[in-house]
């Protein structure tokens, strides 16, 4: 499953928009990843600052 490095995350929600299974949600300033994550890592590829990691 993918994790968020909150020290880097700018909560732009770009990752939410590329998640193919709707496993990511932005709650105001906090990105959360649900158990539905299939570890496809598209969000890791997208993230402008490298805040998503395995």
């Amino acid at each position, binding site marked *: 499953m993918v994790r968020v490095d909150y020290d880097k995350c*700018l*909560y*732009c*929600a*770009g*990752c*939410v*928009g*590329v*998640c*193919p299974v*709707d496993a*990511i*949600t*932005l*709650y*105001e300033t906090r990105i959360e990843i649900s158990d539905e994550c299939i570890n496809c890592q*598209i969000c890791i*590829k*997208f*993230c*402008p*600052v*490298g805040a998503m990691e395995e």
Partner: protein
Amino acid sequence: MKKDCLVVGAGPAGSVFAKELAIKGHDVMVVEKKQEIGTPKRCAEGITKHGFDKFGIKIHPLCIYGKIKGASLYSPSGKKVVMEGEEMEGYVIERKIFEKWLASEAIKNGAEYMVKTQAILMKRDNGKWKVKIKSIEGVEEVETKLVIGADGVESKVGRWAGLKTVNKITDYHSGIQFEMANVNADERHIHIFFGRDVAPLGYAWIFPKAFSANVGLGILEKGAKMKAYGYLIKFIREKEEFFRNAQPIEINAGGVPVAHFTEMVAEGVMLVGDAAQLVNPIHGGGITRAIHSSIMASKVADNAIRKKDFSTEKLMEYQKMWDSEYEEKTKKLMKLRAFLEKLEDSDFELLADILQGEDIYALTQAKLSFFIKKVLKKPSLLKLAKKYLMD
């Protein structure tokens, strides 16, 4: 609670829609998940003047933080092409003021707003949508026949309605930006930089504002050797003439859809702005398209509420309206994008030699035939032009 219409998201798309529908006397509520409308921005804040004149919108002067006369475009080696003229005139706005102003316009006309209020789920129930919203006061349910997804690139409304709003990573720029103080750039122009090592398959920008400038770039992952952030740090370090004494005062990021999306409507749902990926796929500008989509959607919504018809078929009038104005243009821009993504830095140098400023403006407006004629004369571009630009 019951509402004629619920708008999810109070960005430019949501607030313009809310204003237009409220003017017609309908009961419209807007929920915004953030505690403050307009911040943090995911935007370089540039708009063209004619884009707004077209809608008869006169921007409140307090939103305008810079007046732009044109653009300076830089090839990878630094060759400059200048674009000026009436059509290039525009503003750099302060996005958080702009969004609050648009919200206030909607509220003056009767729209109801809730901030720090997130739509967390919506379900179809007996011809209506039941939308759960969560605010400081807890969870409530809104019952409505019409939901407007103005919830940006991360649109949940679209997904809940069963629309394929997922962005493809091949059509989605990874964007990063510093707002910086003390940038040394001609403030009458926006500045655009191309190059595989500058911003692969995208571009870097400087948009000057009153006390600062937005300095950022967008890239496509498939062309990148590092993260967008890494490219931006490199850009700022290498372009000493602009950034020698500059420092950041804000950092922003975001995804920019550079696609041609085709599903904007479902039973009792319309998507507007970024939620429907309505962005110019060449320059990535989204504010004008967001506002235009909202104006179109509000006309259809007004009619749907009067006729009590919220079927997909009825709401498709909105999508048809959109397509008649933008479909052909967007398809052409997608072709142009595919062509530009194949170019090497040496090709960009060649384009800087053969294109004038007005040519480049024409390209962003999907006028391709003159361009095809020009590039067909260049042996190095002939093959790519035939493959990507011609039918």
